[in-house]
């Protein structure tokens, strides 16, 4: 708020990062225009709509690195704050998007228990011997927490992990943006994203700052950006109830099931080094659905609502990065960690624009370009 309130900002890309950034800046009184290549409400293109939206620093550190965990912890502190401010800011209050910090569970069938053990050892490798990060559950404890996982002999509870109803959140962010008088342009692809200006193809518009949040859409402007294909299935069943995300260890798959409102579940996700956006393959469909079936055979009668395919925007080290030069910020590379890392990336962007003290992780995230 101590920045210049007259600043005019363009945010390009209305995925999670774009919406959150536009909202944080508009709350501070800055004039913000938000541009989206696709639709803002119907069949949006952003990976944020495909994601299962877990905030799971522990599960993710197992296959990545300590930095992802540390940033994720910071996000776990920021999310409840964001959601509270979001519901407060609305002139017509909405039911806040469901955000639950009930932890998550990791399970494996008995013949694959080595994988579960390895998961626990990997946690220890990255996080040390602290016991508060995870807790072994025996069958009866597991049954108490999640009666529909009674088929498993043990599991690992990760108490701090959270998950969010991302579709409700993304819709609410849009409502908040409109109430804060952010100009939201949809079906307006911007292929020319530059310092101090953008080009819509028909018009050149000038700004104090342009913030590039296009995700994979920024490929032509970011040399080492690649898309990593992910496929998910949405199913609906009243026969199974889960309170929290469940990760399922299997020799071939690393899959999760996340409960969503209205008896729906999302199961994902494949991770394929490919920038192909064609529909889900039969193989992936089989793998995802057989994992669901193995979790609890009652899933067999679930109805398959839809499949979804998208590309995770990833850089060579699979870490996020903000490239800065005067008049232009490019934030990208959230890879498979959109909801896990977005709050930290957004707070860094806001600090850069308002010239406040750098936010945490600025040293790792920000790369100044000549």
């Amino acid at each position, binding site marked *: 708020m101590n920045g210049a309130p007259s600043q005019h900002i363009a945010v390009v890309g209305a995925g999670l990062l774009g919406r959150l950034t536009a909202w944080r800046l508009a709350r501070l009184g800055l004039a913000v225009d938000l541009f989206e290549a696709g639709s803002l409400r119907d069949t949006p293109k952003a990976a944020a709509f495909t994601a299962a939206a877990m905030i799971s620093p522990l599960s993710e550190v197992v*296959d*990545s*690195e300590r930095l992802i965990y540390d940033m994720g912890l910071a996000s776990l502190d920021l999310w409840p704050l964001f959601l509270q401010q979001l519901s407060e800011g609305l002139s017509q209050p909405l039911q806040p998007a469901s955000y639950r910090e009930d932890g998550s569970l990791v399970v494996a069938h008995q013949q694959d228990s080595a994988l579960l053990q390895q998961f626990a*050892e*990997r946690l220890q*490798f*990255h996080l040390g011997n602290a016991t508060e990060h995870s807790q072994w559950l025996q069958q009866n404890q597991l049954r108490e927490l999640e009666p529909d996982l009674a088929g498993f002999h043990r599991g690992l509870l990760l108490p701090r992990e959270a998950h969010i109803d991302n579709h409700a959140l993304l819709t609410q962010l849009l409502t908040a943006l409109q109430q804060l008088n952010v100009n939201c342009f949809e079906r307006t692809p911007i292929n020319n994203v530059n310092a101090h200006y953008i080009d819509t193809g028909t018009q050149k518009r000038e700004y104090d700052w342009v913030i590039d949040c296009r995700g994979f859409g920024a490929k032509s402007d970011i040399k*080492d*950006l*690649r*898309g990593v*294909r992910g496929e998910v299935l949405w199913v609906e069943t009243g026969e199974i109830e889960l309170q929290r995300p469940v990760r399922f260890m299997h*020799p071939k798959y690393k899959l999760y099931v996340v409960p969503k409102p209205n008896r729906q579940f999302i199961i994902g996700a*494949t991770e*394929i*080094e*490919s*920038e*192909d956006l*064609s529909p889900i*393959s039969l*193989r992936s469909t089989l793998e995802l659905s057989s994992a669901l079936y193995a979790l609890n055979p009652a899933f067999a009668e679930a109805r398959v609502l839809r499949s979804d395919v998208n590309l995770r925007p*990833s850089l*060579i*080290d*699979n*870490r996020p990065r903000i490239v800065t030069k005067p008049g232009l910020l490019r934030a990208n590379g959230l890879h498979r960690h959109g909801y896990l890392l977005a709050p930290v990336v957004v707070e860094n962007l806001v600090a850069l624009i308002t010239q406040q003290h750098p936010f945490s992780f600025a040293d790792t995230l920000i790369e100044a370009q000549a």
Partner: protein
Amino acid sequence: MNECKDSPFSLYGETLASRFVLGTALYPSPQSMKDSIAASGTAMVTLSLRRQNPQQQDGDTFWQYIRESGCRLLPNTAGCKTPKEAINLAEMSRELFETEWLKLEVIGDDYNLQPCPFGLVEAAAELVKRGFKVLPYTTDDLVLAQKLLDVGCEVLMPWGAPIGTGQGLLNRYNLRTLRERLPDVPLIVDAGLGAPSQAAEAMEMGFDGILLNTAVAKASDPVLMARAFAGAIDSGRMAFLAGLIQKSQTASPSTPTLGQPFWHQS
């Protein structure tokens, strides 16, 4: 190994500078993959087109990272279950990566990814006819190995254990038989290794090289593990060349007691 006289590691008439062949899947990031390849000192890496849509150049960025390693590329047919699938994928790989070299996989069992001996021989025969240089991923079965040689394979890659299990050398008898009966065929132990000591053991037995992926890529520190395997493979090779002593039931002191120096006599 500059002090020992080793014969070159030669496959299909081409000499490779390292006996370590590394896979490119499952790393935490492309950067980690590149660093692991560099740390391993490998001269050949495997890669898979499976699940991609090569007509659209959809994996170009990722493949570029692999190409930048400067290693010889060994495309594989991972996950193929029939000769027809494997042959189609082989043709696509040859075109895309501009190499006739192929790690042939034809999987017979879905759970432990065991090679299908019948499909493997059938596919190998056809691919050799089509000009491929086939390196088949096979079990440790001697007769199967002979059939693969009969149809024109010049290198064999028997498993240590099922892919990704980290079980090490499960059937030493069979592996030793392969080595003894096929003394002139380059044999690379492919799959199932979890620890550098297992790789060293295979090299001590006289195998010509090691191919692995999971043990490095899924280690907590892949780059360090790549170095660990590289060292083990070198050590195992040197030990093989140096000649291991035979195991014995009775102790034989390395310093003869008769020659004990006088100051040890009380």
